[in-house]
């Protein structure tokens, strides 16, 4: 079973719009990470948010973490076509276990 799961398979937006990907997880965590994977490439980290943080920003990206509801969100503002990718959340169960990825949400940004 997945330790973390994104809530939607796919989202489509037009350039310039905002989009939010949601994630829920099942265990206590040290940190939650968001990754983006473009076609033909390995995943690349966007944001790492630790369990004692509630919000983290990176340019047009904003991640939130709610440990009480065991959920996180990643918002992208002013989307661009190059933001088209699969977005994953990933968590490490406390205790130094490996990073486990959710199933991913495909975000498509059209002109």
């Amino acid at each position: 079973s997945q330790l973390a799961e994104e809530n939607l398979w796919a989202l489509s937006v037009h350039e310039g719009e905002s989009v939010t990907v949601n994630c829920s997880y099942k265990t206590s965590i040290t940190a939650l990470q968001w990754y983006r994977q473009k076609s033909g490439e390995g995943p690349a980290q966007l944001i790492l948010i630790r369990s004692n943080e509630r919000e983290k920003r990176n340019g047009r990206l904003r991640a939130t973490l709610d440990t009480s509801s065991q959920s996180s969100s990643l918002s992208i503002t002013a989307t661009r076509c190059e933001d088209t990718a699969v977005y994953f959340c990933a968590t490490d169960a406390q205790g130094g276990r490996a990073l486990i990825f959710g199933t991913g949400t495909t975000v498509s940004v059209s002109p």
Partner: protein
Amino acid sequence: NAGVIQTPRHKVTGKGQEATLWCEPISGHSAVFWYRQTIVQGLEFLTYFRNQAPIDDSGMPKERFSAQMPNQSHSTLKIQSTQPQDSAVYLCASSLSTSAETLYFGSGTRLTVL
């Protein structure tokens, strides 16, 4: 910094043959991870080394799959007697020391078993 290097990029094997996949982590990183990615199963964790020692192999199939890290500069994933269901993209990643830090992924090896 060349990033995580995986070779080969593509590998085609016949059913029953052996496949060895190579990974060179980022210099100075002590943790190395292997994942398998398919459309159906998504991104599955296989195994994890830290300072060359196996830490967690809970995702490794019990038969035919093995991973090693003989030195800090490379790791191998070996699949014996490959089967069509082993066809996938195999991804290697490294981090400074743990999974609670940024993982840097290679571009993967696409294994096709005919």
